[in-house]
Every structure is written in C-alpha cells, then in structure tokens.
C-alpha cells in the first residue's frame, strides 16, 4: 500500500492534468485578429497625424472624418465578432475590444464638439496604449513561453 503522501501527490498530479486539459479563458491566436489590429493601429496613427496637421482649420472638423469613424467602427465590430466566435467566457481580448469600441464612441463625441491642439496627443496616447496591448496579447498567444517583449 502506498503511503498517504504518495497517494496525495498522485491525486495532485491527476487534478493538474485534468486542469491542463480544460479550455483556457484566453482564445487561441487568430491571424485575422492580429492583422486587423495591425491595420487599426496604422489607421489610427494616420488619423491622429492628419488631425495634428489640420487642427485649427476646417479640415480638422468631425464632418470631414465621418467616413473614417464609420470604417473604424465596422473594423472593430468585425474583430469583436471574430473574438466572440471562440465562445470563451470573459475572454480578455473580447473585453479589451469592447473597451476600444466604447472609446471610439467617446472620441467621436469629443471630436464632434471640436478638438483643441493639446487634446490630440492625449487622445493619441490613449488609443496607442489600447492597440499596443491588444497586439502584444495576440502575439503572445502564438509565442513560445518566455518570449513576451516589453
């Protein structure tokens, strides 16, 4: 007969193996999400560059950027649908994308009321942070352990 400690260790090992077999809360790496996020990142960079150049002129008005907002909304909605298709409860990627979507609505509301020169770098930093972290998370999903790069 095995000693209790041996049986206990065996039980722990079996429980760990069963846990490891469980589905992670994090959806697997998705190349379409990774590509979509990279596209959003460059689109945001261009948008804020143009806004910085145009601020103080009629070209900076929200009306001149309605098409960008519509296109960006569509792209984020597509990414959210793709993330939701993995059916992971409380998936961090889906959660972060939801916040990005709401942030875009806040940005549009602010833009419709007119943006000052000082606000643009602030807004840019907020969107940069969200997109950078989402891209980092998507990249880490396909990376081997110990390769997360700050």
């Amino acid at each position, binding site marked *: 007969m095995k000693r209790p400690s041996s049986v206990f260790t065996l039980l722990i090992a079996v429980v760990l193996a069963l846990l490891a077999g469980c589905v992670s809360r994090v959806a697997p790496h998705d190349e379409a999400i990774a590509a979509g996020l990279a596209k959003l990142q460059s689109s945001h960079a261009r948008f804020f560059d143009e806004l910085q150049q145009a601020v103080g002129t009629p070209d900076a008005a929200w009306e001149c950027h309605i098409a960008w907002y519509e296109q960006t909304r569509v792209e984020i909605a597509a990414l959210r649908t793709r993330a939701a298709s993995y059916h992971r409860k409380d998936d961090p990627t889906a959660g972060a994308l939801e916040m990005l979507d709401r942030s875009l609505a806040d940005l549009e509301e602010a833009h419709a009321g007119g943006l000052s020169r000082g606000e643009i770098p602030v807004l840019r930093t907020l969107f940069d942070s969200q997109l950078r972290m989402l891209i980092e998370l998507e990249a*880490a999903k396909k990376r081997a352990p110990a390769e997360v790069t700050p």
Partner: protein
Amino acid sequence: MSAADGNALDVESLGKEMLDAARAAVAGRAKALQVLAEMEIRRLADVLADIAGMLAKGEIDRDRAKTLVRLHRRTVSSVLRSVEGLGILAADDALKAVTRVAGAAVNRLLGFKLL
C-alpha cells in the same frame, strides 16, 4: 522514496521537479509582463496629469474633462484586460509544464500512459 519498491513515487524529488518546471515556465513571461504593464500604467498616469493640467489652464472645460477622463478609464480597463490575458497565458504555461512533469511520474508509477 515514498515506498520500498522501485516503481514508487519519489514525492520530494517530484515536488521539486514540478516547482522548477513552473518557475521556468513563468520566469521569462512574468518579468517581461511586469515591465510592460508598468510602462503602460506610467504612460496613462501621465495622460491623466495632462488632462488635469489642461483643465487647470482653462484649455478645456469641465464637460470635456469628464469625457477625457471617461475615455482614460476605458483605456485603463482595456489595457488591464490585455495584461490579464498575458497573465493567464503565463499561468497556462506553468500548468502545462507542471503537468508534463507530474504526468511522466504518474505514468511511470502506473506502468501505463494515463496522462
């Protein structure tokens, strides 16, 4: 060894191997994750200070400041969800590494491939 026969589980050595495997799996990701999270949070703290500065100088009104702070809160929430995801990935790696070690020991003990 925990029992007299050759197939018995060496609990002490197995425990150490499991811990080493978990440490090795988490080590790289954890440090990089800490640096990344700290960098982003510091950047977001600077942004909050910028918003307060613009309000103090009268560059924006209170309503606009509220909108910007709401956007800032959403950004913090989004960034933390991503950090959470990176943390879960690190934990998943540790669990897989520990299970590999434990599974090999259990299979050896049982004499057939259970795990």
